[in-house]
């Protein structure tokens, strides 16, 4: 039987994978995908803890997290589209206007 720890370790691993993806990838869209991975890892943690504590609150929070993730994905992609229009590139390194 999987214990709580198993779920937690899994979500930690997923979270780390997501973070590595944000850092390593050079494609804006892929970066956003990695963020989604991270969010999902967190969702998993919430549900696992909710189940362990015997309350449904964990799921409620997941509900909200998903909503926010959806909103964020939408806006993020809109920004990516706008940026692409501006520079025709999806490489984050080509957006250095904020450089000193």
């Amino acid at each position, binding site marked *: 039987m999987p214990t709580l720890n198993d779920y937690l370790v899994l979500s930690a691993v997923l979270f780390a994978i997501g*973070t590595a993806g*944000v*850092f390593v990838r*050079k494609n804006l869209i892929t970066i956003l995908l990695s963020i989604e991975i991270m969010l999902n890892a967190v969702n998993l943690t919430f549900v696992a803890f909710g189940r362990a504590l015997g309350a449904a609150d964990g799921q409620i929070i997941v509900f909200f997290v998903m909503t926010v993730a959806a909103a964020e994905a939408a806006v993020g992609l809109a920004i990516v589209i706008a940026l692409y229009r501006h520079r025709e590139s999806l490489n*984050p*390194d080509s*957006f*250095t*206007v*904020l*450089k*000193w």
Partner: protein
Amino acid sequence: MLLLIPLLPLAGFLVDASFGRRLSKSIAGGVACAAIVASFAVALAAVFRLVALPPDARAIVEPVYTWIASGDFTAAFTLRLDPLAAVMILVITGIGSLIHVYSTAYMQEESDGEFARYFSYLNLFAAFMLVLVLGSNFLVMFVGWEGVGLCSYLLIGFWYQKQSAIDAGKKAFIVNRIGDFGFVLGVLLAFVRFGSLDFQEIARSAATLSPETTFGTVSLITLLLFIGATGKSAQIPLYVWLPDAMEGPTPVSALIHAATMVTAGVYMIGRNAVLFSHAPATLTIIAIVGAATALMAGTIGLVQNDIKRVLAYSTVSQLGYMFLAMGVGAYAAGIFHLYTHAFFKALLFLGSGAVIHALAGEQDLRRMGGLRKELPVTYWTFLIGALAIAGVPGLAGFFSKDEILFRTFANGHRLLWVVGLFTALLTAIYMFRLVFLAFHGSPAPAPARPEHPEEEEPAAHGAAGHGAPHGRHLHDAPPAMAVALIVLAVGSVAAGYIGLPASLGGGDRLAAFLAPSFTVAERPADAVERSVEPGGDREAEAGEASRGLEWALMTASAVTALAGIGLAWIFFVRSRTAADALVARFPGVYRILSRKYYVDEIYDAAVVQPIRIVSEDGLWQGVDVRIIDGAVNGVAETVGGASAWLRRLQTGSVRAYAASLFVGVVAILGYYLWR
């Protein structure tokens, strides 16, 4: 009531300073003259009240308000009228009034605003001088002391468009300040030593001491105070400002630099007579400095060609006499000479002013001559003044100067007496050189072009249509000026008689009147009144022998004076070329004298230049620019440099930001887990 005496001129100052530009000249001048004349009236009334008191209780004290009350220390603004102050306020307000009236005519050609400014300064000066002499403690006196210095600066530099006038004003103020530094130190030391700044209290404390045999605290205090006096009263070494101060209008020279401000130092010593009597070392120094100054100034005055400069050096010389008197302990004699000197020196200055006014700004003696016929009133009054200062018997100057010389001799200072006598000879010579060159002989060949114009106004001189500014329009002094001249001339003759010595049949009334000021007001317990004038005891006992001595010395003085006049006559009337021949024989001596012993040059090299170099190169460049600015700018540059370095964090690269976020999370998480 005492407060009114300085308050009235102060009110005049306020009116003329605030509204002067909008007032007509007659109103502005009228306000100022009314203020000082009213002050004279009040002073007269106050003196009458004073005289009505018995001699040993002759003092009117008027506390005005408590100025400083801090912990244990209180300093009150209190005015005190005693015989010494009475003489001073009468001189200040009386002669001051005459000079104010004279000025209304002399300054007539200034614009309305300038006219009012002049009178506002004049009134302010009178107010401060009165505060100086009426103050009952060092603090109030110091207020007046500084105030008259300020007004002197303002008035010397009155024609501020002229660079030489500005420079002279600054020089006067700065040299004064140097003296004032010594003065303040003396006051502070006195406070430390005696615990009070009040004159009476200090005198009482000092009277309990015995005169110092070595150079102790009291000697130091008095020496510091005397340094202040040398600045204010133009003695060696701080006299150098007075000749330059002639840049100011002539009535200013008459009032401030002859009759009143420069006498502040003498007054101060008189005020602290008890204190000074306990410091014989300082008194000796004072006497020597006084005599030396008198001699030195006399020699310089012999070769000056500017009419006002001659009078300026004459003033320095006569002040030397006063300090000589104070130094030998003859305080009353010093004050007596102060009083008579005020009359005839003011007269001489005002007379020279009339001459300059008539010659439209000419001040060079070599271009004058024969004015005797064209300016009679001026000539006769001037002559009286000259006779008085030379010490011709019968006039005021004779009595006061002779008194000083007598006291000097009688108190054992033979050498100083010789110096004093010789200086009297010089005085007669240079004074009558001036008279003869200016008023006798034939008029100067060409119409004088003003080389040292006193007035910068290009407007026509006088309202009566006298014509172009150059050229001689020789009208004698206008009524306002003539009145002053005549009154002063009468004073120069008559004023001396209240000091007529016993040996000539008089009662020496002035000295008797002044004596209480130079002693300590006795507490009821003490029975014996201690006088600090050595001469007083001596006169009581000496009797005939002293009389004879006095007669002999008087004769010597009179002969000297007449001899001096005679010498001047020979050189400057009989054959004018004789003087030039003498100059040709001793060119070196002449050069030294006419360059005033190069004192100004010495001061410049020894004092001014080193200070300037230290200030400019050392302090300004080194400290201010390099160190202070360097530090401040350095801080700014460091900040700039640091931020330029830190700026590089803003790479603009999103991934770099993400990286730093990532690293931060790991680090923080690790930190918390570790704990």
